[in-house]
């Protein structure tokens, strides 16, 4: 059949008409008589459902504002692009460790005055939460959910290795001992099971120094990667490839399934213990509801051990108002509504996480579906709970740590060389960031 110009144009016209008549439509549920607020959040799945329910309730209980929830992947990058492009949403759900970079770039509106006028004073939060909402003396966010890292122990694996399930490794040495007892090798020498391994899941390669009394930034905000505590910590990390063999560890690691699946190494019993947050309880409920497990603080170096002040990473999810938001007061009205204790607790219960509030309602811990929530609360309230270092160059710091950790893990770097590499790179980056800021201030 010959295709003529007329038939081609006709076909294109018909397609266009079809698209107009039967193509996708804008969301019909958005009322035209209300101010619509766009809320970008990172959560999908059950976490997203819990927040959506709150959003729906907000939309039902008043008739002036309408919040439209949109789950956004890689939200910390996309939100920045939307702000730079001058078309940000009205409310954004970030991680608290994003705040320094956003705040210093002038990407957020401060919330001090709005919070004070709504009576949301800082004393409502547990102590560890307050610094996570602030940067350089100002408050930039409100917290929605939070979590602390702990050590999850698979009791079935411990028992099968002849370890008393009531045993709680409190120090790094005890963790190593447990590892020695639980680790299984095949006749060919490959690792079949481990008591503990840093790379499962390996999301916080930079945190080990804190368990040895180290830190990554000093009071002036300068990097302290080569701190003595960090040197001890990464010397200990390096002892694993030395003892077990780097190739053997890599091989074992590649056999572990992805985190959010039934093949998760902890659920499968391939590793007896993992460092994780309260969200792991959700995975256990879905994929291994009969798993016998216990949660204890992450072990620390003997010299640092204090039963009354456990050490653990604490971080949270926050909501912010981006610069350029069309209706900041309305945005804050929604945020303030979310801050009601009952609503924050609903969210915490659904996410299986801690509440960031100092005062929990009666029965909150009793009815919490995460049986380890009290341990996580104790960790979050500890004076030695630590957050992600508050520096604008954190993305670079973390990337440098991850890369150098890999080199350490495959036996190409010693602990001291690894830390020196990180220190040099981050000193340069910090210097550059300061010079850049100074130059902008001069302008």
């Amino acid at each position, binding site marked *: 059949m010959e295709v003529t110009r007329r038939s081609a144009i006709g076909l294109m016209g018909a397609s266009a008409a079809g698209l107009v008549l039967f193509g996708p439509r804008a969301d019909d549920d958005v009322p035209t008589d209300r101010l619509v607020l766009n809320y970008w959040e990172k959560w999908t799945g059950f976490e997203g459902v819990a927040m959506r329910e709150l959003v729906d309730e907000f939309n039902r209980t008043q008739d002036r504002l309408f919040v439209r929830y949109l789950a956004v992947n890689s939200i910390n*990058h996309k939100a920045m*692009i939307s702000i730079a492009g001058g078309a940000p949403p009205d409310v954004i759900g970030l991680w608290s460790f994003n705040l320094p970079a956003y705040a210093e*770039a002038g990407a957020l509106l401060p919330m001090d005055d709005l919070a004070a006028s709504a009576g949301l004073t800082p004393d409502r939060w547990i102590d560890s939460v307050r610094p996570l909402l602030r940067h350089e003396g100002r408050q930039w966010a409100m917290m929605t959910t939070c979590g602390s890292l702990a050590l999850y122990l698979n009791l079935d694996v411990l028992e099968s290795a002849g370890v008393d399930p009531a045993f709680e490794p409190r120090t790094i040495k005890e963790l190593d001992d447990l590892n020695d007892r639980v680790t299984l090798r095949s006749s060919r020498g490959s690792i079949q099971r481990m008591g503990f391994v840093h790379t499962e899941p390996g999301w916080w390669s930079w945190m080990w120094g804190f368990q040895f009394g180290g830190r990554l930034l000093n009071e002036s905000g300068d990097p302290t990667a080569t701190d003595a505590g960090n040197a001890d910590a990464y010397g200990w990390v390096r002892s694993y490839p030395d003892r077990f063999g780097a190739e053997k560890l*890599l091989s074992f690691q590649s*056999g572990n399934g992805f985190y959010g699946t039934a093949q998760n190494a902890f659920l499968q019993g391939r590793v007896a213990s993992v460092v994780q947050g309260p969200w792991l309880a959700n995975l256990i409920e879905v994929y291994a509801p009969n798993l016998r497990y216990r949660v204890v603080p992450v072990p620390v170096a003997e010299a640092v051990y204090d039963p009354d002040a456990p050490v653990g990473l604490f971080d949270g999810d926050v909501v912010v108002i981006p610069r350029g938001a069309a209706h900041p007061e309305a945005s804050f009205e929604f945020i303030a509504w979310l801050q009601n204790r009952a609503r924050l607790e609903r969210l915490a219960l659904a996410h299986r996480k801690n509440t960031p509030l100092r005062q929990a309602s009666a029965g909150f811990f009793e009815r919490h579906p995460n049986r380890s929530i009290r341990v996580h609360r104790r960790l979050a309230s500890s004076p030695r709970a630590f957050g992600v270092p508050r520096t604008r160059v954190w993305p670079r710091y973390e990337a440098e740590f991850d890369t150098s950790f890999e080199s350490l*893990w495959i036996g190409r770097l010693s602990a001291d060389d690894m830390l020196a590499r990180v220190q040099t790179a981050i000193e340069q980056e910090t210097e550059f960031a300061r010079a850049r800021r100074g130059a*902008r201030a001069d302008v």
Partner: protein
Amino acid sequence: MTSSRSSLWLRMLWVAPWMVGLALFYAVPLAMSLFFSLTDATMIEPPRFIGLDNYAALARDRVFWRCVANTAIYAAVAIPLAMILSLWLAALLSTRHALAKPVLLLVFAPTVVPLVAASMIWLWIFNSDHGLLNMLFTAAGATGPNWLTTHGWAMSALIIMSLWSVGQSVVIYLAALRDVPRPLIESASLEGLGRFRRFVHVVLPTIAPAILFNAIIQTITAWQVFAAPYIMTGGGPDRSTYFYSHYVYDQAFVFQHMGYAATLGWVQCLLLAVCIGAVYLCWRRLGDLR
């Protein structure tokens, strides 16, 4: 005259949407990125003009040189391998064998699989414990390596994976091979040229334009490789698969050095131009074989 003028306007009208798109989405961003490369630009703060400082900073940036080296090695190995494999497959498939078409379908099919999905498949193929590849090693009585987590092997794994999408080149070669005049090959046979010499002295020079086209496309693809290593190795271990485009992405969107990322983009463009120039020179040499 009037009719030709109105015809010109009509043609202009037809190409206008494309021209507007080209200006808005290519020319303007190109000009802006050139400007940004001369500034200290984050994503949000107003750009601050710093002249050629970003270009000078490249010389001291160890990670930049590492990425250039990684990408150059990848391109230097992956491109010739893909060229040889696709040409060989095309030569095989250009016969009238009954299986030629089904095999062509199999060779071409991977190119329509989204790269992210393909990367997930290859993650499992390269899995050192349960992966298909290492199972073959085990069946042969050998021990396969930790493909994606060992220095050296990770790069090899990504190069092997890059051969997954040779289907497009095969189709282009196939079309070119079918256009080689039969009398030319027959007269070469009559002059006593063997099969190999016929291929080198008659077929290759005749399909030289297709070779040039594929070589250029593969050079561009190799220098822009991003998704597969990003998903499969994250640039590791120890930055051994940290490629140029991944570094540009990190500088722009993770570290918020938009000005520096723009500089990297322009240098990538220059490097690519040099490589394409080298490809063109090699292609000219191929013409001399005639």
